[in-house]
């Protein structure tokens, strides 16, 4: 995909969370955002997801601009897959029903078709045995994988992940990252906010470092992890990779 951001600004109260970000990535498939907490990476992802509105600037994905009005923005959201840190699933619905809900109610598939597609997608990720379980009966890793399945089942233009493994233990983290990597191999375009540097290094084709609401650096992982240009990025990576 081609991702263009120009002059994106977002403030919460008097705090400028995203500060005039501009970026043009003509051909990116796995875009990873890293940086310190509160640096603005989650907010930027939420803007891309159509969940927050930037006060200024424009965003275009493959040349089509992100809408600003409520209803077009809702339609935009329905066409992309977003996965959060935790609590993605609706606790009163089973895994299967969670996946069927957007297919049936948003994308207007007939019930049988929605069910068939949900089951097929669950099967693809070896989650079919859990189809009739409620989220409370699933492990953290399974919950995230069902959440990703729900995002994939709608055949989204892009997939967005907001720290999808931050609430998981290392083993579950691995199982979720494997799934994300598999999606990447299939050729799906994704944007990922993460603290998993090792994963970013192997999976990303562009990595952006955000601090204080600005993108201080954006380059392929080979470059950013070995020879970061900005001082604060080097310091951040030095600290995070030391242990």
């Amino acid at each position, binding site marked *: 995909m081609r991702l263009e951001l120009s002059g994106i600004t977002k403030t919460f109260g008097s705090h400028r969370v995203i500060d005039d970000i501009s970026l043009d990535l003509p051909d990116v498939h796995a875009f990873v955002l890293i940086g310190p907490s509160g640096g603005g990476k989650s907010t930027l992802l939420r803007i891309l997801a159509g*969940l927050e509105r930037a006060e200024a600037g424009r965003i275009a994905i493959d040349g089509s601009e992100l809408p600003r009005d409520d209803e077009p923005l*809702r339609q935009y959201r329905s066409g992309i897959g*977003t996965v959060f840190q935790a*609590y*993605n699933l*609706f606790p*009163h619905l089973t895994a299967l029903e969670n996946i069927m*809900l957007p297919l049936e*109610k948003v994308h207007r598939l007939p019930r049988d078709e929605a069910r068939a597609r949900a089951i097929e997608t669950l099967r693809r990720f070896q989650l079919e045995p859990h189809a009739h379980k409620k989220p409370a009966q699933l492990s953290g890793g399974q919950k995230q994988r069902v959440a990703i399945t729900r995002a994939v089942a709608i055949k989204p233009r892009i997939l967005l992940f907001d720290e999808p493994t931050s609430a998981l233990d290392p083993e579950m983290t691995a199982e979720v990252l494997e799934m994300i990597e598999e999606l990447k191999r299939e050729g799906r375009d994704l944007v990922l906010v993460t603290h998993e540097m090792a994963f970013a290094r192997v999976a990303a084709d562009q990595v952006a470092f955000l601090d204080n609401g600005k993108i201080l650096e954006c380059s392929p992982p080979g470059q950013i992890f070995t020879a970061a240009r900005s001082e604060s990025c080097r310091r951040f990576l030095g600290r995070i990779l030391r242990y």
Partner: protein
Amino acid sequence: MPASSNPSTPALWQRVASLLLAFALIAGLFTFAFSTVGYRWNWSGVWVYRALFLKGWLVTLLLSAISLVASCLIGLVLALLRRARFLPLKYLARIYIETIRGTPLLVQLLIFYYVVAHSFAIENRYVVGVLTLSVFSGAYISEVIRSGIESVGQSQLDSARAIGLTTRQTYRYVIFPQAIRQILPPLAGQFASLIKDSSLLSIIGINEFALSAQNVSSYTYSNFESYLPLAVGYLVLTLPISLWTQSLEQRNRFET
């Protein structure tokens, strides 16, 4: 999880015996109290009017049932208005709720019956009674519903928006199914209050249960014989609701 698997739950016979003991204690206290005032019971006078009691009880049941449904609708609309983005609607709901909850039903009933109903040419006192009761109870129910809605976390709303649900669909498929568990126990409690509050309708001359008792009392000059059946009649309605509430609360605890 069945209750019996819990080791701290006492055996059935223990519970029955304790219940009987507690009941006997309270019954004994009142028997003693009545015996010291030397009250002379005379049930035969009241027995003559048993049909009047039954009719009053049925009217109370009917009025309560209609008010129950109507007050739920009013409560739901108010709860949604309080969350409205359009400020005048939001304030309208707030003023309504605070005024109704802060003033006695007695005053509301008099104002509705003698002023509002009159100016809108509502002749039927039963209609006025049901409306007033619904308006009154609706204010309380709206707060119950609102807190239930607010118990559904922001992350759920984010998820709902992320998959592209409209606001209406979010309420229908995400918020209400989760909120209903929080809403039901206090709502049932509110139903029990509503049934008892309906006794005030007697002051605008509605022939419900409380007025039947008053009438019988004045026909027969027997106070307690008229009012004790009244208490029992209300208990018959409120006790099942109370037990239902408790079982709901119990179930919620196990499921979460």
